[in-house]
């Protein structure tokens, strides 16, 4: 056990070393992996708010001399044949193609990733609504906004086709009035963070509760703020309307691509999250417009890649590093997202591991009955669960099989991984049993054991030696596979890192932290398994007890 501990400590030290090495690399500026602070005083957002070039949005600037706000490309023509980053599920690609010839597209799950890709030069432009586009280009000196809008559009709340609720909310919107909404728009796109408060749901809620699928990674429209709570312009609007209607709101945060399936499967009453109204969406959903939102392009600024004078040198690097650390962990208690994510990952891994093991052994037992029908069912189950990607299995479970059932996503994740791990356990144990010499069973039978007793007392203990290390390996694979549960709205370790990235627009700290957490978790759990196994392993124990008789003789 001491040796084990030593080994774990040395591994952790190794990781720490790699971690430090990566920090040094990033400080020396080799990989441009973030660490850019908010724009300095050069851009005063407050002033720009007034001189809006687009109706509601704040224009970037009219002083073209500042490189940090001058876009790399000034017209659509220059962007011909360039690569555009598009959010999966957003209808921007068609629109871009309409304006810009030969545009190529890369698809991402969060806008944070798109901006990172943009800064890294993997794509040349990103598309988003005016609010997001402006907010991001204003807070990052490497990014700039192209002022010419791609298209004038409206944000809408998405309801299932023919849902009568839509009328109710539309009416509420009219009654609340455009001015009230406009006030909120100014607050959430402004720079004064102290005003950005989501109202408490202190109304009685006589008219019931609605479930809302809410985007959770697009600042300033809809994102996770303090303690991972949902906030932004969208939730603020929704709660204003809810107050008017006197209904309570239950938010379920998720990625853009999950919003519409979530509503369609009946898991939520409607979806909100800076969804622009277009023909495609109107085909499947009814949409209630609540604010205009033009589509605009974010590109690299002319200053991109050039370092500010003040940030050069070791001191600059240190202060940048500190600021980045603060943004990632301290601000808005973001570390809580990570710790909660770690907890979710642990829960899914441990429970699906235990239940999967039990499920697997039940399958082994059922297969031993040699019933043609049962064996057929097991084989089909095995084929399906082994043959499909884990993400697809989870999505089918969540949206199809448990589509109409109110069930926590984390439970669906546990069920999904239990099934997958169970089937793996079954096939590993089955082949381990086949690997035990046939003569062992015959010898046991010839001594008078029944088949079942011979199996548990003679065959299984010998098979264990073969399947145990294999299962341990499979369990590690299971822990790693759980990183996809974000697909069904569970905030696990990976998704927590993603959410933080969507706020800070930096990759380094969130990703490295997530990597280190996974590494430690996997090491700890596999060490724990080995430890438990050693404790219950029979060989040593038995022999020790028998020594007693030996001495008596």
């Amino acid at each position, binding site marked *: 056990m001491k040796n084990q501990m030593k080994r774990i400590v040395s591994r952790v030290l190794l990781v720490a070393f790699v971690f430090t090495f990566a920090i040094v690399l990033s400080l020396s500026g080799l990989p441009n992996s973030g660490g850019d602070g908010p724009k300095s005083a050069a851009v005063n957002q407050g002033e720009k708010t007034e001189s809006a070039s687009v109706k509601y949005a704040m224009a970037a600037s009219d002083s073209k001399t500042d490189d940090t706000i001058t876009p790399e490309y000034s017209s659509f023509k220059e962007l011909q044949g360039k690569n555009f980053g598009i959010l999966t599920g957003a209808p921007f690609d068609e629109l871009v193609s309409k304006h810009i010839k030969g545009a190529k597209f890369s698809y991402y799950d969060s806008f944070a990733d798109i901006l990172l890709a943009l800064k890294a030069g993997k794509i040349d432009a990103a598309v988003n609504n005016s609010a997001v586009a402006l907010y991001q280009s204003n807070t990052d000196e490497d990014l700039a906004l192209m002022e010419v809008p791609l298209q004038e559009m409206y944000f809408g709340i998405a309801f299932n086709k023919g849902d009568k609720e839509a009328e109710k909310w539309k009416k509420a919107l009219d009654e609340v009035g455009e001015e009230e909404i406009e006030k909120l728009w100014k607050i959430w796109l402004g720079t004064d963070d102290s005003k950005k408060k989501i109202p408490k749901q202190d109304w009685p809620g006589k008219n019931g509760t609605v479930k809302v699928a809410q985007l959770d990674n697009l600042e300033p429209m809809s994102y996770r703020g303090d303690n991972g709570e949902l906030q932004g312009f969208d939730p603020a609007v929704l709660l204003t309307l809810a107050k008017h209607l006197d209904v309570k709101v239950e938010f379920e945060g998720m990625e853009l691509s999950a919003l519409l399936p979530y509503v369609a499967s009946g898991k939520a009453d409607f979806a909100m999250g800076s969804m622009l109204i277009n023909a495609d969406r109107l085909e499947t959903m009814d949409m209630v417009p609540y604010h205009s939102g033009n589509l605009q392009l974010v590109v690299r600024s002319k200053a991109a890649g050039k370092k500010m004078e003040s940030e050069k040198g070791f001191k600059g690097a240190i202060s940048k590093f500190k600021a980045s650390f603060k943004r990632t962990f301290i601000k808005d208690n973001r570390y809580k997202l990570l710790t909660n994510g770690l907890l979710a990952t642990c829960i899914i891994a441990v429970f699906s591991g235990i239940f999967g093991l039990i499920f697997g052994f039940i399958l082994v037992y059922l297969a031993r009955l040699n019933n043609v029908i049962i064996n057929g069912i097991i084989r089909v189950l095995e084929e399906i669960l082994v043959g499909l990607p884990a993400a697809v299995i989870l999505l089918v479970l969540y949206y199809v099989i448990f589509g109409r059932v109110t069930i926590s996503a984390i439970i669906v994740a546990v069920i999904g991984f239990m099934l997958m791990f169970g089937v793996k356990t079954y096939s590993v144990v089955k082949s381990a049993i086949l690997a035990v*010499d046939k*003569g*062992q069973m*015959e*010898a*046991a*039978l*010839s*001594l*008078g*054991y*029944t088949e079942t*007793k011979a199996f548990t*007392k*003679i065959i299984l*203990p*010998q098979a264990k*030696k073969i399947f145990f290390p294999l299962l341990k390996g499979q369990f590690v694979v299971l822990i790693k596979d759980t990183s996809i549960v974000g697909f069904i709205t569970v905030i696990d370790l990976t998704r927590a890192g993603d959410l933080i990235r969507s706020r800070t627009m930096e990759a380094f700290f969130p990703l490295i932290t997530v990597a280190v957490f996974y590494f430690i978790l996997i090491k700890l759990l596999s060490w724990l398994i080995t430890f438990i196994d050693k404790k219950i392993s*029979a*060989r040593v124990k*038995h*022999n020790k007890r*028998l*020594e007693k*008789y*030996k001495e008596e*003789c």
Partner: protein
Amino acid sequence: MSFIEIKNLKKSYGNVTPLNGLNLTVEKGEVITIIGPSGTGKSTLLRCLNRLETPDSGEIIFDGINLCEEGAEIHKIRTRMGMVFQSFNLFNHLSVIENIMMPQMDILKVSEEEAFKEAKVQLEKVGLWSKAFEYPENLSGGQKQRVAIARGLAMKPEVMLFDEPTSALDPTMVSEVLSVIANLAETGLTMIIVTHEMRLAKDVSSRVVYVDEGVVYEEGLPEVMFKAPKREKTRDFIFRIKEWQWDGNVSEIDIYEILASLEQFCKGQFLNKNEYLNCIQVVEEFVSEFTDKTNAKDHLIIKLAAGEEGEPRIITIDTNGLSDSENILKTIGDEKTDNISAKIIRSKGEPVIKDGRIVIKLKESLSN
């Protein structure tokens, strides 16, 4: 009523029929050895006896209970029959003593202490008490088989079935297992032994059963069966197991193949190491020195008669088919020959030449 009665037992797999209406009765206290060519149903018979195989038809009546009837509580009957396998089948995850204790505790429901005492008695009987806490992987084949016998005996069976107990053993280890079985036979325990071990059949058994064509082809007292078997197939079998022969054209000679087959025969006949090396050397010297592969039509016959224990081993080389037969006979027959190969052959035994055959009575040599 006899202790065990087997009536018209039939078993077939596809188009192979190992048992084709076999009848056999066994009385209490008998030690029966079952011999016969490979693939004639000896092992199948034994495995049907404790129902590791299910016979297609026929009856097995054990102490008045028909084992082939549906609903026979076969696992209870199996505790009354011990079985020793060719491949030992010790439980590899248990130590020697646990191998013997666990079945007692699980099935006979005796206490741990009693099981331990019984295990000790049985281990001492087979001379392996010193290995009680070893694991099977650390034992030799012979030791494993002795433990397997002890494990079977600890269950206090009424009959012990041995399925080729020495076939998987190195020749050097066969004796230890044989002597354990021989001792056991003297205790009056009923035993049925399938074996290729003629010593066992001859010296230990009270009755020898020759199985061929899926039936009991001939049976009788060992003296009768080995000296004067009545039926032709039995005679062939008994004769063949005592004699090794190579017969073929010189051009077909593959010295390694010949030596390998000779070696196998020697091991089966329990020639000691010296005797066996002498045989090998004589054959090797003769073949390499006196046969000429270019004479494609030359024909050679080599025989080794193992004889009874204590009798000389005789190698016969028939040179009549060789083109320079006369020369060869002259060279080997000459006491003062200069030919080194001939000298070596002469050193192993006195060659007598008769009708073109060289007959060498190998010198007796003690086992090391």
